[in-house]
């Protein structure tokens, strides 16, 4: 917005380095030596008490990874990563029993309290159904209670420390535990589904993840069950130089439904951190999976130094007829985001959705989008992407929609809009559309613009100050996506967008 020089100045001055969640918790860590080799993988596998087949699976992936090259096609630039200079295993030493929060290291509880996460497990566990607190945060908590409950599988650097609500979920027949536990206790399910959506040979980072993943969540919703509560994982990168390699596997059997929330914060530090997660979703006949993410990892300081590298492979497989997978994401953090949550629409009449808000500021680089692969008959997909670029950031939407030969009546609608705030940032759109079936109907539209002076004038003319006017317009811009988020996330997401664009949109 050339007309409002102050706004630009303010955006430049934004204290990206005053990262709200920038603190470091001092907890003793149990670490493997730096670097990656077959021995390290054996070490991780042994630490996790894994069966032999799992070790072989990891080693197979590692051997494959050695033959792969790091991809360079994304519009992101960063110094070369030295994969031998990373710790691949770090576990909090005082791992408590997963049954009760009271056994958890109080330091950990403090971390969650500092995060102000909208999860009040302590109270819920203590039988508090509705806390009598009147502060602002409680209101968010309130929503959690009103909308039912939230079960948390908290990941603290690589190991699942606490798994709550297990019993209640067990009553419904839902399995919600760490992936390590699932490998030990439900090997038949893990063996059947792990790597069936993102194979070990999929891409450079997914293959690395397959070799070294240390933890993540496992969800299994059996036939006909509607998961009684929203499931949630809070990721947190803590120990210096520890890359996080989570593996999440969610399976919804015939007619099942599950909504999963993922949210992230990370402490402030100088060195870049690598995060290469893999998320696999499998929906069988008539099943529905809703996966929501709010990501606000450390984006780097005002000079673009530090910050998280987020190279994630997320893919959902609508394996059954009439199945549905919906991805919703709010991306405000990370120095570099490389993330394309995708849907393979294999079952007839299946549908996929992708709703995304990507906000970049400072020197952030975002290259994100989705893939909708139409294989079955009468499949439909919908993509709504809103990119907001400010400061010196680069924000790219990269998406693919394809209909294969037999995908009759495939239907896609894609809309990606970009908003530019300041003249030093860039917004890019790279959609790929591939139709191999005459009955396919694909529509794609994209626009890039700044907030128009007319819009701003209209709002300000009604007595609303400039900053608030911009905030109002931006809120309207992202409304379509915010509406898709579960209530408690929607509140956090709106706050985050505000913080991310502080100075320009209030």
């Amino acid at each position, binding site marked *: *917005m*050339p007309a409002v020089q102050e706004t630009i100045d303010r955006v430049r001055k934004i204290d990206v380095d005053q990262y709200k969640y920038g603190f470091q918790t001092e907890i003793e860590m149990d670490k493997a030596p730096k670097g990656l080799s077959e021995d390290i993988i054996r070490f991780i596998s042994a630490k996790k008490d894994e069966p032999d087949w799992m070790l072989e699976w990891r080693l197979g992936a590692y051997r494959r990874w050695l033959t792969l090259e790091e991809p360079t*096609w994304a519009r992101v630039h960063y110094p070369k990563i030295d994969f031998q200079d990373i710790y691949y295993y770090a576990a909090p030493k005082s791992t408590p029993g997963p049954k009760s929060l009271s056994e958890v290291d109080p330091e950990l509880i403090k971390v969650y309290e500092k995060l102000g996460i909208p999860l009040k497990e302590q109270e819920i566990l203590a039988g508090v159904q509705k806390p009598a607190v009147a502060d602002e945060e409680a209101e968010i908590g309130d929503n959690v209670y009103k909308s039912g409950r939230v079960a948390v599988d908290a990941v603290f650097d690589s190991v699942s420390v606490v798994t709550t609500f297990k019993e209640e979920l067990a009553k419904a027949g839902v399995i919600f535990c760490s992936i390590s536990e699932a490998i030990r206790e439900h090997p038949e399910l893990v063996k059947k589904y792990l790597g069936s959506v993102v194979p070990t040979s999929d891409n450079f980072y997914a293959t690395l993840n397959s070799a070294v993943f240390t933890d993540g969540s496992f969800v299994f919703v059996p036939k006909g069950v509607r998961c009684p509560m929203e499931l949630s994982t809070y990721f947190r990168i803590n120990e210096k130089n520890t890359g996080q390699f989570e593996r999440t596997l969610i399976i919804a059997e015939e007619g099942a439904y599950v909504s999963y929330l993922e949210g992230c914060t990370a402490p402030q530090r100088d060195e870049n951190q690598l995060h290469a997660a893999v998320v696999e979703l499998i929906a069988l006949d008539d099943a529905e999976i809703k996966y929501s993410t709010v990501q606000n990892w450390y984006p780097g300081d005002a000079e673009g130094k530090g910050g998280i590298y987020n190279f994630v492979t997320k893919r959902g497989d609508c394996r059954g007829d009439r199945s549905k997978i919906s991805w919703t994401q709010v991306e405000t953090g990370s120095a570099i985001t490389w993330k394309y949550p995708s849907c393979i629409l294999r079952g007839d009449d299946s549908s996929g959705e992708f709703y995304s808000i990507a906000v970049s500021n400072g020197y952030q680089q975002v290259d994100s989008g989705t893939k909708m692969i139409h294989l079955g008959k009468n499949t439909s997909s919908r993509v709504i992407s809103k990119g907001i670029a400010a400061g010196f950031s680069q924000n790219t939407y990269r998406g693919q929609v394809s209909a294969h*030969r037999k995908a009759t009546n495939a239907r896609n609608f894609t809309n990606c809009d*970009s908003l*530019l*705030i*300041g*003249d*030093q*940032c*860039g*917004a*890019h*759109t*790279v*959609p*790929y*559309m*591939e*139709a*191999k*079936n*005459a*009955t*396919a*109907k*694909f*529509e*794609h*539209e*994209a*626009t*890039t*613009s*700044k907030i128009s002076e007319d819009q701003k004038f209209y709002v300000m003319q009604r007595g609303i100050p400039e900053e608030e006017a911009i905030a109002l317009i931006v809120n309207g811009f992202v409304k379509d996506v915010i509406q898709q988020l579960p209530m408690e996330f929607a509140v956090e997401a709106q706050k985050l967008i505000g913080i991310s664009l502080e100075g320009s949109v209030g």
Partner: protein
Amino acid sequence: MNMHAQPQRTLAETALIDAFGERLSQLPGDGAVMVKRDDAIEAIKNGLPTRRVESWHYTDLRRLLTSVPAFEAGAVAKALAPVLEGSAVLPVLNGVSQTKLPEVEGVTVQRLSEKLTDGSVAPGLDPYGDDDAIGALNTAFVADGYFVDIAGGVELEKPIEFQNLQAGGQSHVRLLARIGAGAKAIIVERQAGEASEDGEALVSSVSQLVVGDGAQVTWLIVQEQQDTATHLAQFKAHIGKDAKLTVFVMNAGGKLVRQEVVVRTTGEGADFKLRGINLLAGDTHTDTTMVLDHAVPHTTSTEVIRNVVTGKARGVFQGRINVHQYAQKTNAKMACNTLLLSDDGEFSTKPELEIFADDVVCGHGATVTEIDHNHLFYLMARGIDEKSARGLLVKAFVAEVIEELDDEALVEALEERLDGWFSTHG
């Protein structure tokens, strides 16, 4: 070009490299030109681009170019009747420009072989990037073509039609055109061939255009190659201050076709329009790739591409609009619509926006669909049989783009070509 060293050369790569060795002594050019040729063949030695090269993602030239014909094949005897009656025709027959040319007031025409020999065109021979395989191929082998200079202020009454004709074999041709300030012209670039005994043809054709300040140019590319021909073409233009350039591309032939349109606005107030029709049939591959740079403030562009895919044809449209940081107040819009009429056909499109300036309005839209059943019903309910109704709708879909050209003679001539295609492929 492909950045990775190829382990083994394909037959086509080997044939091109060998042909260069054999042709070298006959290729015109002074020292500077020959250095450019050497650089260009080096690029080809590194391998033709594969789908791993982003700009060739949908046209894997290394895989698709399976063979390269020998240089001489059949011979085209004479030029075709021009698309627009009364045009001054500049024919290149079998890769060779002609000496006897029509005289047009205010226009200087020279044979490109002369300009290559004296080296005056050497600076323009560089490919525009590492992935510019067509530029490299053409620079290595270009032997002839024309240099057309339209003086400032000249308003041409009749169009100029450049014809590139051959019958099988290889030809590598270049057309350079300079339009003086305030001049007005319609230029037709005709790409066609005759069937020859061994059928195959490989044509590379590069057109380079500089539109002077305030000039107005309409450039029509009519490509009707034989369905055995590989046609690799490039159109490059710079548009000056307050100048207008309209490029119309009609692809209605060829076996393997790639038409690149590379345009840069260099003066404020420049306006660019691209209108394209791709009529695809048979077992063919046709790629239209546009790279548009809005390099200065206050420039506008619109692009409309319509595609009809039948048979086993594969179509590609890639369109990238780059808005440079300095290019504030850019207004750019692009649309690509495809009618996919066959289950064996396919169409891939990649409309890209790369935007570094904030005070801009840019948008693109793309659709792929079959004929709207409601439209079909509407016509059939009025007693029109299904085949005719379909024909009407498909023709209307592409004719819309032609009708936008506000020149009656032009619209009529192009619709005639359209009818010709529909009568053989309808």
